[in-house]
């Protein structure tokens, strides 16, 4: 426990230092946030334009899909805000920066996480939370404290599902494997497919997106619970999946760390 509070304190110290460094490039920071917001906003604009002509998509109304989209986006932002520096892990390993991380008495993952602030993800978070708030009111949900708590847990659980895949794939960089393009692709699948009711895809695709690459658990499954569309009671347990998957991913990371091969001779 003392070790954990120490790690959190140092994470915050390092992250603040990184932010102070980044603030020297203020214009870049602002444009970064803006681009994040526009990127996610244009994804939602697509849905909005379609549903202007068609009132429902696989039985979901616009406010309901907006709620789903908001949940997915907020989960994504919560996942990437702390983990965005993992995007650069190939670089950290190649440039030998990771050696220095291993020379310091603090968990290497915490040090990588504190390397950089995910500025673009602030834009994601902004759009996600606004969508959740607006759609949460417009979708006709009978909010209770319990449902609200479930919703919060589900967003965190969804973030952990995505984080688990991101972390596990990133950890291959410790063995000098180049999986950058693959990571971008998986991230893209999460973003692209996670924001729609899975029944749109049907058949094999729905099955794959539920049980192989569990995109459905980031937002769709918990959203069916909140919107009163859940078909299986097990959907209520969906936030726990994120915790389990992330635990597995951390084990994979730790395993790859033992096989770390530094650059050079």
């Amino acid at each position: 426990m003392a070790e954990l509070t120490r790690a959190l304190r140092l994470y915050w110290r390092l992250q603040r230092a990184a932010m102070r460094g980044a603030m020297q490039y203020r214009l870049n920071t602002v444009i970064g946030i803006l681009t994040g917001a526009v990127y996610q906003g244009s994804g939602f604009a697509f849905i909005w334009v379609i549903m202007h002509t068609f009132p429902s998509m696989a039985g979901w109304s616009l406010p309901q899909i907006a709620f789903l989209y908001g949940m997915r986006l907020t989960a994504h932002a919560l996942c990437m805000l702390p983990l965005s520096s993992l995007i650069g892990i190939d670089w950290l390993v190649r440039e030998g920066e990771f050696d220095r991380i291993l020379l310091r008495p603090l968990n290497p993952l915490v040090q990588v996480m504190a390397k950089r602030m995910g500025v673009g993800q602030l834009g994601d978070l902004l759009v996600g939370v606004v969508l959740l708030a607006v759609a949460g009111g417009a979708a006709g949900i009978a909010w209770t404290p319990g449902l609200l708590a479930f919703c919060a847990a589900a967003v965190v659980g969804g973030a952990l599902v995505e984080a688990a895949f991101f972390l596990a794939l990133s950890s291959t960089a410790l063995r000098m494997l180049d999986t950058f393009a693959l990571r971008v692709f998986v991230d893209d699948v999460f973003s692209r497919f996670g924001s729609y009711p899975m029944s749109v895809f049907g058949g094999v695709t729905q099955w794959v997106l539920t049980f192989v690459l569990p995109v459905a658990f980031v937002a769709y499954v918990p959203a069916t619970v909140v919107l009163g569309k859940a078909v299986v009671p097990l959907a209520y347990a969906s936030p726990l999946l994120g915790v389990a998957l992330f635990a597995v991913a951390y084990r994979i990371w730790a395993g790859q760390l033992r096989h770390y091969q530094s650059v050079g001779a």
Partner: protein
Amino acid sequence: MIRVEKLTKIFRRPRTFGGPFGALRTLVTRQYDERTAVDDISFDIAEGEVVGYLGPNGAGKSTTVKMLTGILTPTSGVVEVAGRVPWRDRHANARAVGVVFGQRSQLWWDLPLVESLRLVGDLYDVPAARFTASMKRMRDLLGLDDFLATPVRQLSLGQRMRGDLAAAMLYEPPILYLDEPTVGLDVLAKQAVREFILDTNRAGRTTVLLTTHDLADVEALCKRIILIDKGRVLYDGGIEDLVGAYAPPRRLVVHTDDGSHTYELTEGLKVPDLLANHAVRDLSIEEPDLESVIKRIYAA
């Protein structure tokens, strides 16, 4: 303080493939390329020693240092640093060693130097009072005051290296690893770095392991050197003994009107004959230096 016994490191890398599906094939392959970087090395370093760890590029110096710091796990053999196995007990080991890479700074690029030092103090849990005392010592020894408030990216190479030395010794580790600490520095900055190392060693009995290509560093700092090549130890002992054992013979240079001629001073050289055959204007004797000795060993 440092004990290394039959240490071996074999690098095993998944074979990389080209072609359109190269990345995916590399990811799933079971084929590996192997390379032995460190091959059955043994040595002991006592507390307070300053040892030069020398070898040509690719000899296995960095790999050894990385195993001593716990960055790499040995393939076989024993490493013990201050009674600990570094790779198994990385955090405790980290607190016991300071590491300076001449080529790579550990300082925060965009922040003033003083902020970097504070962060290092936090990371190593240095209590406030000790931090102040330690900082004062560093400021005096390394003359940091002129550039403490300057962002690291604006420091000159010599200033940056002084900052890195301060960061490595701030938490007063008993062991200091230096990997080419004077590379690229001018004469005065090199002198400052050497004096700091000597002072740290004298004042705190800090054990120092130094890898460098600058033999002037070694002559100024080390009594003992370990020479390795192709992953194996070639020599381990005092500098004088090395020069005595491996030195090429001293050379006699005879200067005449038509230029100068060099002869190795061996038993067979008949100096009177030589003097008779040349119209000698001057004579000089060249003493072998460490550089010529090491060149000879590498070439063998």
